[in-house]
């Protein structure tokens, strides 16, 4: 039942610290990926002061998913995984009975709503997880994908009785 090996590009953002690159590459070989090339753009920082790295690798789709997951588990910021380039980032806050309404299912649903990746989640539950809590999600989408993602989040929030606070993009200047 082995699936065909495919080529993938993974775009990572690393903090500028010794050993970071090695730490980021380990999960690839550990999960059976075959490293093809690493493009280390030193001196070229992301807006958040990170170093962008582009990694080309080969793996089966199944293994590739495991690689991305373990990269994220290892705290590596995966900006783009696979063929799609996530070029827009946005932050939304969800608030309500997040735990009761299954936060991980909510996140999975958002990830499944299009070319979007949840790159960071911060939870605040001052009254405990049984009470109203809030989560700040950092999302990366492909260029022009923000509106579609926001619509999907709005629908999901309505369905689950959650409140969504979206960024006012036009007004930021």
């Amino acid at each position: 039942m082995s699936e065909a090996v495919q080529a993938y590009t993974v775009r990572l953002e690393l903090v500028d610290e010794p050993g970071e690159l090695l730490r980021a590459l380990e999960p690839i070989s550990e999960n059976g990926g075959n490293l093809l090339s690493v493009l280390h753009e030193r001196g070229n920082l992301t807006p958040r002061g990170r170093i962008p790295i582009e990694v080309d690798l080969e793996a089966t789709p199944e293994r590739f998913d495991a690689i991305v997951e373990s990269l994220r588990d290892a705290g590596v910021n995966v900006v783009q995984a696979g063929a799609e380039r996530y070029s827009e980032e946005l932050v939304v806050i969800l608030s309500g009975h997040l735990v009761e309404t299954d936060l991980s299912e909510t996140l999975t649903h958002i990830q499944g709503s299009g070319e979007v990746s949840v790159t960071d989640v911060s939870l605040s539950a001052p009254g405990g997880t049984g009470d109203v809590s809030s989560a700040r999600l950092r999302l990366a989408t492909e260029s022009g994908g923000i509106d579609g993602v926001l619509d999907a989040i709005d629908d999901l929030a309505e369905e689950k009785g959650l409140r969504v606070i979206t960024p006012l993009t036009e007004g930021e200047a």
Partner: protein
Amino acid sequence: MKLAVMGAGAVGASVLDLAAEYGHEVVAIADSSSAAVDSHGLNPEAVTDRKAETGTVGDHDPADALAADYDVLVEATPTTLGDAEPGYSHVVEAFERDCHVVLANKGPVAERYADVRAAEEASDGDLLFEATVAGAIPALSTVADLGPTHVTAVRGVLNGTANFVLSRMAAEGLDYEHVLAEAQDLGVAEADPSFDVEGTDAALKCVILANVLYDREYTLADASVEGIANLSGSVLELAAEDGRTVRLIGEVQDGEIRVGPRLVPENGTLAVTGTRNIVQLDTAFAGRLNISGRGAGGPETASAVLADVGRLAKR
């Protein structure tokens, strides 16, 4: 100009008080049960004292104020939804008498814009309503100067009560209930704050802007509205950790009206604090304009009313 003022609350009383300052005179004023009428001009102090002592402004019937001899009717009765009464009938009656109308009351232009414009059309009188959007801020006259078709979007903080609550919650880490109670003690929020915290008031202002910007009638039913009632303090906390804050933002763009709590940069232009309002206009040829200031209050709103009266006097 000779003014008749319908409504003797915070706004009506301030119009009465400040009219002379602007070179106009109030010849009639009405509250819900009485009216004072004097064709030589009312004495503001006498009327205000009587209102404070007896609850009435004079010995006349409210209808006598409408029937008095005036150039401009100032409508400052409570904003109501749906039929926009009693304001709407006052407007129609003034237009039937070929008088001008200046509104502080949002109802007629938010809920019955087409009807009001039709009544104006059939009259020699003109309609202005600067005070209905963001109190002292000259939002509508700026739109008129730019030309409505040159304004591509309007957004802003249009409700001081909601903004006070959000900015206090963020600054002090206090929860919604606590800050709302404090706002009520300070007189910033009304005993029933629902119009403000549910986003209705901000939405009415956006509807009025949309009516001015676009060539069709909008009402509250055309707006997508979410308020800030019971917003969890954890939302503001998470926003602050990321250099952002939450504001109740009204937006009019591409024919759509939307009001809701939104993330904005913590030190950004739209993150005004306290009861301050801000109106941001995107224009076709003049870039972006930001006008901020006091969005409510008796004298503030009366100054917008009297600015409209001044514009009518020049026509």
